[in-house]
C-alpha cells in the first residue's frame, strides 16, 4: 500500500526540499493561499473525515471551524510532545518527512488565519529540532514563509518550542501554558483553545500525524482520502507496534486492518511463538485487553475498538506475551503516571502515589488479598475526579487488569491461591530480535 504520512518510505530523500518540490511539495499550500478562502480549506478537511491522531480522534475540520471570529490574532500549534509509552510515530515523521509536516502546519495556519505557528516538541527531540529548524530556515529563504507569500497579502512564520521532559504537556492546554513560559499544568475548560488559547487568542492545537495528512488531502481531495480506511475512520493510521513482537516499528495501514494482521504479518509474530496474553492499544494509558481469538480478529478502527470496551487512541500497540505478570505491568504504568502527574489535582497527585506504594508491596509479595482490594479502591477514587485525562489514564490499566487478570495480583498475596516468586527474582524477558519495522 502507498504510504501517506510515511511517504518517505516510498520516496527516499523526501526530506530534501528539491526532491519534495519535485514530488508536488508545497503545491497544496500554494493552492490554498492563492486560490481558496480559509473556510473552503476547512470544508475540505471536514469532508475528508480526518480525525485527530494524537489519541482523542476528534474531527480535525470541525475543530478548525470552532475558532472564535474577529479576534486580533490566531495561532496554530502542532503537538509533537509525543510522550506516551508505546508511541514513536511523530519522531519518524519529523525526522524523515519533515517538509510534509511543515506544509500541513502551514495549510492549517492559513485555514485558521494564523500568521504564527509553533511546533511544540518534547525536549528529548533536541537533534530532531535542530534538523527541523534548518528546514524552516530553507523555507524562509525560498519564500514559502515570510511576508507576502506567493505575492498575496498573507504572512506566516513557523517556530519550534522545545519542552523539557513533561508528559502532561501533551495535554493541549498544558502545552499552551508551557509555551507561555509557565508550568505545564492543564487549564480549566471552557474556555477551549479555539476561543482562548495561546496568549488568550483563538488557537488550533493538532497532533503531528494529523497535520502531516493535510497536504495530500488538499492535493487529492476529500473523496480520495475517504476511500482509504472504513466509514467513520477515514484514511490511514501510523500504528506503533512494540513489546513482545519480532519486528517492532511503525506501520502505516488503512484503518480497519485486524490486530492479527498487525501483530503477525507486520510484526512477524511473537518471539518464541508464545501466545499473546494481552495488548494495550493506545500506549500505557489504555485498557489492558485480554487477547482472545475474537480480539485478534478485531478491526483496528475507532468504532470497532470502542465496541470491545477499549480505545484505539494513538494506535500505540504494546504486545504482552503469556509470561507477563499484570501486577508487574501495572507497577510499570503506575510508576510512569505517578512521575508525570503535574500535581494540580489532588486525586491524581496523591492517588498515583498511593497506587504505586500498594503495587510495590504487591510485587514484593508483602500483601494479602485485602491489599489488592485496596488498590482497586484507591484507583476508583481517582477515576472521574480530575481536570485532565491523566488521572483517568493512570487508573485505566490498573482497573482493567484487576478486572480481567485479578489472579495475577492475588498470586502475590500471602493468602492467595498460588504464591509466585518475587518479581525481582524473575528472569528478565529475553531480548527480542531487534529489527526496525518498515
Amino acid at each position, binding site marked *: 500500500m502507498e504510504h501517506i504520512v510515511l511517504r518517505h518510505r516510498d520516496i527516499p530523500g523526501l526530506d530534501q526540499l528539491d526532491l519534495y518540490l519535485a514530488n508536488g511539495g508545497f503545491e497544496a499550500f500554494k493552492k490554498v493561499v492563492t486560490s481558496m478562502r480559509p473556510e473552503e480549506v476547512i470544508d475540505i478537511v471536514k469532508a475528508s473525515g480526518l480525525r485527530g491522531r494524537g489519541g482523542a480522534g476528534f474531527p480535525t475540520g470541525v475543530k478548525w471551524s470552532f475558532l472564535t471570529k474577529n479576534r486580533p490574532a490566531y495561532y496554530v500549534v502542532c503537538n509533537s510532545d*509525543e*510522550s*506516551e*509509552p*508505546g*508511541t*514513536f510515530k*511523530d*519522531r519518524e515523521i519529523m525526522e524523515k518527512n519533515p517538509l510534509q509536516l511543515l506544509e500541513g502546519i502551514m495549510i492549517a495556519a492559513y485555514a485558521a488565519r494564523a500568521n504564527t505557528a509553533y511546533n511544540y516538541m*518534547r*525536549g*528529548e*527531540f*533536541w*537533534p530532531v529540532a*535542530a534538523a527541523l529548524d534548518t528546514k524552516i530556515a530553507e523555507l524562509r529563504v525560498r519564500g514559502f514563509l515570510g511576508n507576502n507569500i506567493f505575492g498575496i497579502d498573507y504572512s506566516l512564520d513557523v*517556530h519550534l*518550542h*522545545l*519542552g*523539557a*521532559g*513533561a*508528559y502532561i504537556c501533551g495535554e493541549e492546554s498544558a502545552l499552551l501554558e*508551557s*509555551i*507561555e*513560559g*509557565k*508550568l*505545564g499544568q492543564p487549564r480549566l475548560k471552557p474556555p477551549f483553545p479555539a476561543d482562548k488559547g495561546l*496568549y488568550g487568542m483563538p488557537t488550533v492545537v493538532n497532533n503531528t500525524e494529523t497535520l502531516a495528512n493535510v497536504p495530500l488531502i488538499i492535493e487529492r481531495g476529500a473523496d480520495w482520502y475517504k476511500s482509504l480506511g472504513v466509514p467513520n475512520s477515514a484514511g490511514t493510521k501510523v500504528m*506503533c*507496534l*512494540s*513489546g513482545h513482537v519480532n519486528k*517492532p*516499528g*511503525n506501520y502505516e495501514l488503512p484503518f480497519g486492518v485486524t490486530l492479527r494482521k498487525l501483530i503477525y504479518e507486520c510484526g512477524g509474530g511473537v518471539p518464541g511463538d508464545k501466545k499473546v496474553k494481552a495488548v494495550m492499544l493506545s500506549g*500505557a494509558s489504555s485498557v489492558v485487553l485480554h487477547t482472545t481469538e475474537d480480539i485478534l480478529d478485531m478491526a483496528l478502527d475507532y468504532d470497532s475498538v470502542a465496541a470491545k470496551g477499549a480505545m484505539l487512541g494513538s494506535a*500505540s500497540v*504494546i*504486545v*504482552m506475551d503469556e509470561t*507477563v505478570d499484570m501486577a508487574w*505491568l501495572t507497577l*510499570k*504504568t503506575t510508576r*510512569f503516571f505517578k*512521575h*508525570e502527574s*503535574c500535581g494540580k489535582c489532588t486525586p491524581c497527585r496523591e492517588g498515583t502515589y498511593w497506587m504505586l506504594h500498594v503495587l510495590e508491596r504487591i510485587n514484593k509479595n508483602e500483601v494479602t488479598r485485602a491489599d489488592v482490594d485496596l488498590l482497586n479502591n484507591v484507583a476508583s477514587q481517582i477515576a472521574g475526579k480530575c481536570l485532565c485525562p491523566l488521572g483517568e489514564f493512570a487508573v485505566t490499566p490498573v482497573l482493567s487488569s484487576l478486572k480481567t487478570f485479578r489472579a495475577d495480583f492475588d498470586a502475590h498475596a500471602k493468602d492467595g491461591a498460588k504464591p509466585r516468586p518475587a518479581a525481582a527474582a524473575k528472569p*528478565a*524477558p*529475553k*531480548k*527480542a530480535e*531487534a529489527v*526496525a*519495522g518498515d
Partner: protein
Amino acid sequence: MLAEKYHEQIQATLARYPADQKRSAVMPLLYMAQSEYGYITKEAMEEVAAILEIEPTQVASVVGFYTLYYDHQGGKHRVQVCTDLPCALRGADKFADDLCKKFGVKLGETTKDGMFTIEAVMCVAACDTAPVFQVQNKDGIAYHENQTVESAAKVMEELKAK
C-alpha cells in the same frame, strides 16, 4: 553573564514570541544556561529572570517542574536509560542494571570520576529500538538505540575520551 555572551542568540529567541510575551523564552534560555554552567545555578535563574523581566521564583518553578533541567551538579554526561513498559518488555531493566554494575554505580548515582550519572528515565519515544538510552550533556541530547551493555560502554568510553 548570559545576557552579554549570548546577546544575539537571546534576541533571536525572543523574536520567536510576541514582544509582550518575553516569559515564553524561559525554557530556551534555561537550556542555554544549563549548557553554559553544567546545571542551572541560583545565579543563572536570576540572570534568566532579569533578561525576561520576571521573578526568579517563576524561573525556579519552571526548573523544578521539568525533568530535563537540573538545579544541581551531576555527571558530565547523564546516561538516561528508558525503563518504561515497552522498553522493559525488551529487557531494559536488565540492561540498566548490568550497565550500572559495569560502571560500579547504582541507578541515579554518578561514577567516581564525575563523568557519568546513570539514571532511569520515562519513555523517550523509541520503544521499537529498546534497549535505548539518551546522553544529556552540554551539547544537548543524543539517542543511542538498539543497545547492548557492550555497545553502551563503547559509547561512554568515546564520550570520556572526547
